[in-house]
């Protein structure tokens, strides 16, 4: 399936107080003007969707049947119509919430006395992609993708086996996640099984039954419990994004320090591919703010 990309740039009139938006496919082979320009600017958002359907919605004049500009809607509503197959909107473009309040997300269909009618033809039966928007075919399934990556990156057969087993674990819990999500105990069990798999791969099967291995496993279990509590506090809105990221990074550092205390240096290095004393933190406040813009 192709990709639809929403683009925006400051519109020409009115001191550039609002953004013009238009849509292009992910390859750049086709763009729809939405009553304005269709080159330049900055990508705003993208999502997978049928580019053939988007093209049908856009209609040959690329205005998505926003018939009377500023009456039925503006470029934002035209772009949203074309983006429907990707399930995204151009929210975030400057002036969007003014136009959304005035015309709704997909424009106002109703006219008056037969003038300015702007029906939204969604073309639900249209699927597939425009030739110029077709993206390189992905491998048919994840197993094959793993194999391709392995070949490309020169990874060992052990790595491929580890990834395959990890995939099996994910497949095992997928129906539960889709049905009603994992509860805390199930989620922790899943995380620990993943950890056991990684430890077997990196440290050798059987090491985790040793005294050091068992202690390292307890440290990991403690980390998981504290991480869950932190995530729950975040999702209950008890803490903000920055506090969540700071605390998460602190937990990560503490986990690595404690693991370094219980594992011999060479085991630690084998497990994390890093020497002890060089803790890695993963939480980036900027990325977290982008992921949770309303927090």
């Amino acid at each position, binding site marked *: 399936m192709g990709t639809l990309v929403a683009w925006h740039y400051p*519109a*020409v*009139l*009115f*001191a550039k*107080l*609002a*953004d*013009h938006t238009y849509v292009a496919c992910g390859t750049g082979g086709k763009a729809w003007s939405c*009553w*304005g*320009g269709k080159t330049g600017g*900055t990508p*705003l*958002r993208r999502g997978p969707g049928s580019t053939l359907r988007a093209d049908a919605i856009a209609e040959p004049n690329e205005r998505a049947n926003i*018939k*009377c*500009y*500023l*009456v039925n809607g*503006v*470029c*934002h509503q035209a772009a949203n119509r074309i983006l*429907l197959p990707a*399930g995204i*909107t151009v*929210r*975030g*473009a*400057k*002036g*969007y*919430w*003014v*136009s*959304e*309040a*005035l015309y*709704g*997300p*997909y424009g*106002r*269909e*109703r006219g008056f006395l037969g*003038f*300015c*009618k702007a*029906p*939204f*033809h*969604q073309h*639900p039966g249209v699927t597939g992609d425009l030739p110029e928007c077709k993206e390189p075919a992905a491998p048919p399934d994840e197993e094959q993708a793993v194999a391709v990556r392995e070949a490309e990156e020169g990874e060992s057969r052990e790595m491929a086996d580890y990834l395959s087993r990890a995939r099996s674990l994910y497949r095992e819990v997928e129906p539960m996640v889709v049905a009603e999500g994992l509860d805390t105990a199930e989620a922790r069990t899943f995380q620990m099984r993943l950890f056991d798999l990684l430890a077997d791969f990196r440290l050798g099967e059987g090491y985790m039954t040793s005294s050091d291995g068992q202690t390292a496993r307890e440290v990991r279990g403690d980390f998981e419990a504290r991480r869950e509590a932190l995530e729950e506090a975040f999702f209950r*809105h008890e803490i903000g*994004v920055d506090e969540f990221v700071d605390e998460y990074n602190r937990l990560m550092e503490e986990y690595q320090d404690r693991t370094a205390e219980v594992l011999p240096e060479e085991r630690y290095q084998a497990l994390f591919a890093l020497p002890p004393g060089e803790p890695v933190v993963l939480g980036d406040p900027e990325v977290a*703010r*982008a*992921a*949770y*813009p*309303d927090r």
Partner: protein
Amino acid sequence: MIDERRSLPDLGHGPRLSGEEYDRRVVRLHEGRPPMPGRGEDRELRRAELDLAIDHRLGRDFPADRRERLWQVMQDVERRRLRLIGKHLIGRLVRRRRPGPVRSAHRLAGWMVDRCAEVLDAQELESFFELAGEEPALPVDVEPTDSRS
């Protein structure tokens, strides 16, 4: 992909719908609808759109009585929007090289924000329309032409 970074202030109306969840619900609301909704369906749709925008921009616990007052404002806005059709037709007759009733639409946008300011305080108004201290504006990118619609 740049727009998700600004966090909104807490307005005391409970958690907000995330942007992604807003998109999902808006798409779900519209997907599969007939191209031209009837008058009653159009009204229901506009009300549902307003509630989603409030849930995303102001908070899911925004009081019902103030939602109702905003809905009344939006009903008035819709009536005035239909008047723009006349301006549009006049513009076409005199072949003004504009894409549509630019000044009238901007006046309507300003009027809408002023009316909403009777229901929302300054911080809520800023959050609802994302004005960043600027005048409300609609995008007009097209250069003058005489062949629109």
